[in-house]
Each structure stands twice: as structure tokens, then as C-alpha cells.
């Protein structure tokens, strides 16, 4: 039952990811990507990581993708305007795809599993409470830095997108 | 009190010199360099009393790098040479009006600091840092205060910088490799590394590139003459008096004990190369029109002989190399100072514009003559002691080395006397030449006193360095 669910979700994930790339219209790409993200959220739910799934939906589908859509619309990119790609580009893309897939899979196959049997510790490790404790005890400093990073990127984004007054 | 005290004085002196301003810079530099010399003597005294003067401090945990300054006979004698020559060099610049004097003297002090650090460091990484650090001040000294056309000066100074720097990089690689093998940069640990002949060969080669360029051994010498000619005399003195010795000291301290096998295997090639430099430099010196260039080539010849002695891997050779390093340090500083004095008065280093000076300045002539004689290794000067041991060690290896290397005493006499004749003798020069002042003479007197005293009684130095040289020799022979 879960396996079937996994296959369905995986199929959606992969398909939408492909469509994201092959859609000529950027808006379509964005829509497919949102779907992709939702399917990944479904994966998270299967892991019983509800909090993560929710955050994922909020951040990716909610924030990032909206931002992208806004930008696309801002730039009026909702039409197909990509020039014909050269053969070289296509070939290099395909080669990269195959190569990375091959290498990664080879590496994973060759790797020895650390744990031979799937264990169940029985302890709670992914509830909001536990995650909050881990985040604010063990990962306190990175957490603060993440906030600083966000602040900085916010300022940066504002500065960058602000219209410059060329003649003062 | 340990050896780092001297370094601190030098570094502090550099800073102080910079901050007291142009007017007092030379005096401050002289004061601090003399203080450093006094401290070096005191440290040597403590060392002779059997007290430890080493400093060991952890610096970086991984990779394991220690700040380890080691005072033994070899490093202390070089420290003494450095700190003794620095005040002399500073004193030699006193009469010149130098723009931006505080930077100039501060750089000299900083250079002395870096060189002293090179001699003292027992940790390969720190040693490397000091080694490269010493390149920076001389670069600026030569570039900013040098003589001649700025464009060609910049060219030759940059050539010098890149050239020596490129050589040193190989040394760094060798050190990193050694660290991989031994997990330490400390020289005593590196000595103990049991390297295969193959590894030794590459490490030896890497060190050799660094040192051959610095010494320089032909065919790596092309930077030398131009830089000597173009840098201010104080810079030339630093280069020829101390900096070249860094390389020979490093051969004895690092290269030979760490990788002795190739040194023994390729001994004939190495000595042959060094002796070729001796002959080549001597012959080149015969036909130079520029006084400083001539002295540069003579330095090439002398230093080639020293390196040849070090590569004989005999006690005599190593000891001779050490003695000759000190002797050559003093004599070459003296000779360049003489060139500087002439340059001050005639505003040129062209030999053809000199001549007829002796008649106007008996004192200067006498001093210059004694230095010339010391440079051609007249017995009873310090240079003879060194040269004798060097040639004797070469004779032990192969008599022909001594015969061919020994031609330096003929060719040396040839070019030095020829130079002396053209510069000093003959009918009175049309341009006036004021005899040297007390301050100028004082520098000469110190140098000459050192040369003559140790020429007749080198035993203190010999006794001081021999035990440590024997230790080094023990390391060199550890594979046999």
C-alpha cells in the first residue's frame, strides 16, 4: 500500500520535474514546479515528518514559487521567447545527465550500508517539539546565522532591485 | 631569555624606527640593531654557559606547526652575523640623504628580523614563512630607493622577486610532502624520516631549486648582477652579505640532512656546477664596466665556492662553508661600502670614470686595499681560513676540484687588482675626492678588525660551530 503510494508520488515528482524543464512557457514551468514540490511534501508526509512537510509547502510553494511567478509576470516572460538551442547545448546537457546519473548510481551501489537492518528506535525524533529543541540547543548558532543570512539577503534583494537613479 | 628576544628587539625596532619619523629613523634603527647585536651576544653567552636558549610554542594544532626557535652553534653564529652586519649596514647609509627614511630603515630592520628568523626557525613551516618574508623588504628597498632608470629597475627587481619566489615554492611543496610523511615540520623529525632514494631525490631537487636560485648557482644567477647594480647599496649589502647566506645555511641545515642520498650520488654534478659558477663569475668579473656589477660577479664566484664546499659532505667542507660565509659577509659588505663611498663622491659606478683616487685619499685607499686583499683570500685574513678549508675539502673529494676551484685565487687576484688599479691608481682624477670621514672610516675599521682577528684566531668560531656540524654530518651519513 505504502509502496504503491510511493510509486505514484515518485511518478508525479519526476514527471512534473521533467515538465518544468521542457515547458516552453515559464509560467507553465512554475506551475509544474509547484506540483513537484507538493509531491515532495507528500513524500515528507510519508516519513511522518508533518512539520517539515508544512514548512516545505509554505516556503517553496508559498514563498519561493510565488516570488518566481511574480518575477516572471513582472518581466512579461509569459511567452515563448527562447531562441533555438544549439546542438552542442543539447548534447552537453544529455551527456551531463547521463554522466551524473551513472556516476552517482555507481557510487551508491558501490557504497556499503552502515546499518544492515532498518531499526525503530521508538523514540520521538521528528515532532515539532523535538525539532525545536534540537534546533535551539544543538544548532543554536547555525540557526542564528540562518536568520542573519535571511536578513542580509533581504537587504541585498531590496538594494539590488531598487531602481538606480543614474543622474542622481 | 631565549633567542626570540633578539627577534622581538628587531621587530620592535622596525616598528619603532617607522614611528619615530624621518629625522630620527636612522638613529633609532642603529640603536635597535645594536641592541639586537648585544642581545645576540648575550644569548650566545648563555648558550655557551650551557643554558637552553630555545623557544618552543604551539602555534597551529592541525597541521602541527610549532614556533620553535632553536639556538645552536650554527644558528647562533648566523644570528650573530646578521645582527652584527645590520648596524654596519645602517651605519653605512648614514651619510646618504634618503627620502622616506623611516620606511627605508624600518624595512632594513624588518629584513634583519626576517633573516634572523630564517636562521633560527627549527620548524620547517615557520622557517618557510621567514624565508619568504625576507623577500618582501628587499623588494621594496630595491624598487623604491634603487638607482638608475625606474623602468629597467622595476623589471629586474620583479624578475628577482618572481624568480626567487618561484624557486621557494618548490621548497614549500617539499615541506608539505615531508609533513605528509612524518606528521611534523620540525627539523629533527624530518631528519629521522626514512625516505626512499626516489623520494629523497625529488625533495633534494625541490630544495635545490630554491637554494640554487637564492645563492645563486649558475645557471640560476641571472637576476643577481642587475639587482645588485640597481638596488641601493644598503640593499645590495643585505642581499650579498646575509641573504645569500640564508640559502647556504639552509643547504646545511635542511637540504643535506633531510635528503643526503642524492647529495652523495650527484656530488660531482653539484660540485661541478658550483665550480663552474666560480670560474664563470670570475671570468665575467674581468670585463665589467660597472663596479657594483663586478662585485656582484665576484660574489657569485665566492659563493659558488662556498656551496661547492658544503656539497662535499665533509666536515672540512661544511665548516669551511660556515667560516667563509661569515668572512664573505663582512668582506662583501665592506667592498660594497667602498663602492658606495665612491658613488657618493663621483655619483657613478662606472669604472671608466674613476681612477686617480689614491693620490687624494690615502686612508680610504688603505682600507679598500685591505678589503680587496681579504677578498682574494690573502693568508692572515679570515677569508683565507674559509677558503683554505673549502679547497681542502674539495681536494679530499677530488684533487681536480681543488685545482679548478683554486683558480679562483688567481682569477680573483686578477679581477680585483685590475679593478683596484682602474678605480684607485693612476694620475690624479680631475674630480675631487674628499678623504673619508671618521664615521665612514669607522665602518671600515670594524670590518677590517673582524677580518684580521678571525683570520689569525678563528678558533672561537671553529669551536663554536664544530659540534653542531658534527651532528649534522651524523645525520647526513645516517643511511650509510
Amino acid at each position: 500500500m505504502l509502496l504503491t503510494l510511493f510509486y505514484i508520488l515518485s511518478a508525479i515528482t519526476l514527471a512534473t520535474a521533467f515538465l518544468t524543464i521542457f515547458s516552453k512557457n515559464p509560467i507553465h514551468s512554475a506551475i509544474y514546479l509547484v506540483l513537484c514540490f507538493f509531491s515532495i511534501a507528500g513524500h515528507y508526509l510519508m516519513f511522518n515528518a508533518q512539520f517539515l512537510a508544512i514548512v516545505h509547502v509554505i516556503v517553496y510553494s508559498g514563498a519561493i514559487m510565488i516570488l518566481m511567478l511574480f518575477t516572471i509576470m513582472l518581466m512579461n516572460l509569459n511567452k515563448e521567447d527562447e531562441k533555438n538551442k544549439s546542438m552542442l547545448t543539447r548534447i552537453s546537457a544529455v551527456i551531463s545527465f547521463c554522466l551524473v546519473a551513472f556516476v552517482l548510481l555507481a557510487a551508491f551501489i558501490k557504497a556499503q550500508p552502515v546499518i544492515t537492518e532498518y531499526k525503530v528506535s521508538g523514540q520521538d525524533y521528528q515532532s515539532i517539539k523535538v525539532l525545536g529543541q534540537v534546533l535551539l540547543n544543538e544548532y543554536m548558532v547555525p540557526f542564528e546565522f540562518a536568520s542573519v543570512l535571511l536578513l542580509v539577503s533581504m537587504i541585498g534583494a531590496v538594494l539590488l532591485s531598487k531602481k538606480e537613479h543614474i543622474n542622481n | 631569555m631565549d633567542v626570540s628576544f633578539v627577534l622581538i628587539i628587531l621587530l620592535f625596532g622596525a616598528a619603532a624606527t617607522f614611528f619615530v619619523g624621518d629625522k630620527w629613523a636612522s638613529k633609532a634603527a642603529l640603536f635597535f640593531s645594536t641592541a639586537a647585536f648585544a642581545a645576540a651576544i648575550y644569548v650566545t653567552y648563555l648558550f655557551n654557559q650551557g643554558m637552553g636558549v630555545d623557544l618552543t610554542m604551539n602555534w597551529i594544532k592541525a597541521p602541527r606547526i610549532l614556533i620553535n626557535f632553536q639556538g645552536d652553534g650554527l644558528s647562533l653564529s648566523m644570528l650573530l652575523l646578521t645582527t652584527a652586519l645590520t648596524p654596519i649596514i645602517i651605519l653605512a647609509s648614514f651619510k646618504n640623504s634618503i627620502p622616506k627614511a623611516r620606511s627605508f630603515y624600518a624595512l632594513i630592520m624588518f629584513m634583519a628580523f626576517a633573516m634572523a628568523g630564517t636562521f633560527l626557525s627549527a620548524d620547517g613551516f615557520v622557517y618557510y614563512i621567514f624565508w619568504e618574508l625576507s623577500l618582501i623588504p628587499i623588494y621594496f628597498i630595491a624598487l623604491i630607493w634603487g638607482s638608475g632608470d625606474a623602468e629597467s629597475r622595476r623589471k629586474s627587481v620583479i624578475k628577482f622577486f618572481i624568480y626567487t619566489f618561484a624557486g621557494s615554492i618548490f621548497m614549500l611543496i617539499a615541506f608539505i610532502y615531508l609533513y605528509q610523511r612524518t606528521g611534523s615540520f620540525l627539523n629533527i623529525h624530518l631528519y629521522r624520516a626514512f625516505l626512499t632514494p626516489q623520494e629523497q631525490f625529488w625533495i633534494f631537487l625541490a630544495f635545490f631549486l630554491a637554494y640554487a636560485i637564492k645563492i645563486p648557482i649558475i645557471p640560476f644567477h641571472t637576476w643577481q648582477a642587475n639587482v645588485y647594480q640597481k638596488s641601493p647599496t644598503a640593499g645590495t649589502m643585505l642581499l650579498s652579505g646575509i641573504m645569500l647566506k640564508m640559502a647556504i645555511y639552509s643547504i646545511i641545515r635542511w637540504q643535506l640532512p633531510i635528503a643526503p642520498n642524492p647529495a652523495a650520488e650527484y656530488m660531482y654534478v653539484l660540485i661541478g656546477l658550483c665550480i663552474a659558477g666560480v670560474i664563470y663569475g670570475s671570468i665575467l668579473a674581468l670585463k665589467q664596466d660597472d663596479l657594483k656589477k663586478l662585485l656582484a660577479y665576484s660574489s657569485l664566484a665566492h659563493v659558488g665556492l662556498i656551496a661547492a664546499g658544503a656539497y662535499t659532505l665533509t666536515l672540512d667542507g661544511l665548516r669551511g662553508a660556515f667560516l667563509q660565509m661569515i668572512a664573505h659577509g663582512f668582506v662583501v659588505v665592506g667592498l660594497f661600502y667602498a663602492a658606495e663611498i665612491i658613488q657618493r663622491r663621483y655619483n657613478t659606478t662606472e669604472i671608466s670614470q674613476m681612477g686617480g683616487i689614491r693620490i687624494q685619499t690615502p686612508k680610504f685607499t688603505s682600507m679598500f686595499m685591505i678589503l680587496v686583499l681579504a677578498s682574494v683570500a690573502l693568508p692572515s685574513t679570515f677569508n683565507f681560513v674559509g677558503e683554505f678549508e673549502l679547497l681542502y675539502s674539495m681536494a679530499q673529494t677530488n684533487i681536480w676540484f681543488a685545482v679548478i676551484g683554486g683558480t679562483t685565487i688567481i682569477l680573483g687576484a686578477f679581477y680585483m687588482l685590475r679593478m683596484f688599479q682602474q678605480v684607485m691608481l693612476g694620475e690624479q682624477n680631475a674630480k675631487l675626492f674628499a678623504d673619508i670621514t671618521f664615521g665612514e672610516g669607522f665602518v671600515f675599521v670594524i670590518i677590517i678588525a673582524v677580518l684580521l682577528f678571525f683570520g689569525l684566531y678563528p678558533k672561537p668560531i671553529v669551536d663554536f660551530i664544530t659540534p653542531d656540524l658534527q651532528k649534522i654530518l651524523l645525520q647526513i651519513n645516517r643511511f650509510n
Partner: protein
Amino acid sequence: MENILQQIGIENYIYLSTLLFCIGIFGVLYRRNAIVMFMSVEIMLNAVNLLLVAFSTYHQDASGQVFVFFSMAVAAAEVAVGLAILVAVYRNLNNIDIDNLKNLKG
């Protein structure tokens, strides 16, 4: 609480993430539209996130999920700045085809 991996197996997740990641790479190389390239990057990031969560479960350890939070934060920041740059580029060049952005070449 049971472990979902007992039924599905970690290998499947590995293959899924690898494929997703490769699709991302393919997209970055294939497309010339900067925004779509951004999306491809997001796909790659998500592939990694997914694998992190899978291994978090595999080890029964929260650290993996914490890392996902961080990577999300970084992704958000990256997108914000990246899009701002794109807007600036667009303002100057009137398109965002990366083939036009060659001013930095040697």
C-alpha cells in the same frame, strides 16, 4: 511507531533523489532562461532535501531534518537575491537569456 523504510526501502529514495538531481542538472544545462534555470536549481535542492529526510528516518535522527530547514532557509535567501539580480539584469538588457551575460569573460 513503525519505520516506513521497512516497506519501501532506502534504495528507492536514493534512486528517486538521484534522478531528480540529474533532471535538475539537465535543466540547468539545457535551458537558457535564467528563471527556469533557477527552478532547476530548486529541483536539485529538493532532491538533496528529500534524501536528507530519508536518511534522517533511516538513522532515526533529527539532524537530517534540521539540515533541511537550513537548506530551505538558504534556498529562500538565494532565490530572493538571485531574482533581485535577474530583475536588475532585465532592467538593463531587457531579457534574461544567460547567453547575453558574457561580460565577465577573459
